[in-house]
């Protein structure tokens, strides 16, 4: 269970952020999250996975592939979570951080 105070911190970046759980894994749904400058599209629904999944300690899933100036290895495509298809690039952020720190850590992968 993600503390509500941590979700509140995320709402500074994504006002509609909300916690959700599927098959025992905690996520934060981030509707219409603004992506770093230079990304196309620049706004996208995202899903922050707070626990270990598919070999990653935590992960940020995107509703589609975001073309970023950095060019990333989008090694996960059409992964099915909450009956939607999600995409993710290979990027590791250490565990033990608050959700807002995890999110910023993942978004760094899209910055120049």
């Amino acid at each position, binding site marked *: 269970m993600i503390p509500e105070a941590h979700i509140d911190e995320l709402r500074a970046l994504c006002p509609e952020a909300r916690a*959700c759980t*599927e*098959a*025992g894994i905690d996520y934060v*749904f981030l*509707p219409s999250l603004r992506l770093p400058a230079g990304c196309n599209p620049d706004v996208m629904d995202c899903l922050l996975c707070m626990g*270990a*999944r*598919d*070999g*990653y300690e935590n992960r940020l899933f995107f509703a589609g592939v975001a073309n970023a100036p950095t060019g990333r290895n989008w*090694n996960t495509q*059409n*992964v*099915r*979570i*909450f*009956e*939607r*298809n999600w995409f993710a690039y*290979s990027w590791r952020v250490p565990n033990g951080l608050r959700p807002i720190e995890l999110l910023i850590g993942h978004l760094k992968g899209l910055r120049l």
Partner: protein
Amino acid sequence: MTDQYTRQSFLGARSAELLQNATIAIVGLGGGGSHVAQQLAHVGIGRVLLFDPDSLELSNLNRLIGGTAADVGARTEKVEIARRMFVAINPAAEVHTYAVQWQLAAEPLREADVVISCLDSYAARQDLEVSVRRFLTPLIDIGMDVHLVNEQAHMTGQVILSVPGGPCFRCLGFLTEENLRREAELYGAAGGRPQVVWSNGVLASVAVGLVVELLTGWQRRRFRAEYLHFDANEHVITRSPRLEYAPKHCTHFAADFVGEPVL
């Protein structure tokens, strides 16, 4: 019951009707799924949904049932090969093909009474189980692997039945963070995994046996899951001890884990 099914009439007075009216989905029409499709056609399944994005390649011909050298040249889709075989055996059957990843055709999958997973990664199996449990659909997984031990190849495989409400792949110890992590580390480096026709055939046959048992209840067994281990070197199938130690009720999917989520 028509003459076609008199030899399997011991499955019950309603068995032909139950099989004819059932919808079965096969996800993955490679070495395992093609065997499953062939046998489902023979037992009289009336409606199948076939999912696979790939076309036949030369390296598939050692095991893909129904595939021909001409199909390699024509790059025939695997779902088309399975469809062709199915209707050749059972012309009255309704066959729907989806030459895409199942995630891109998720709505049709919901219609299935049983889904058979012939996928070759743990991550893919995890996603499929989560999705089909939402729609109260039993899932049967088959898979095989070849390990080298002291330079000797050992072939093993498994057939697992996951029924909503009963223990899931994680409860049964089949899906673990450890094997998902190892698989992720090997991403892109695995190459073509070793596969042979005869062991795929054994696993597929057991899976079809489970489908028929689920639909007809002919053995009157009361089971909430199944986990069978296949030693393909010794040609022996045994029930996994993990089944005995699994919780009676799933600890990963809540009882109200039903239907489409509201995000």
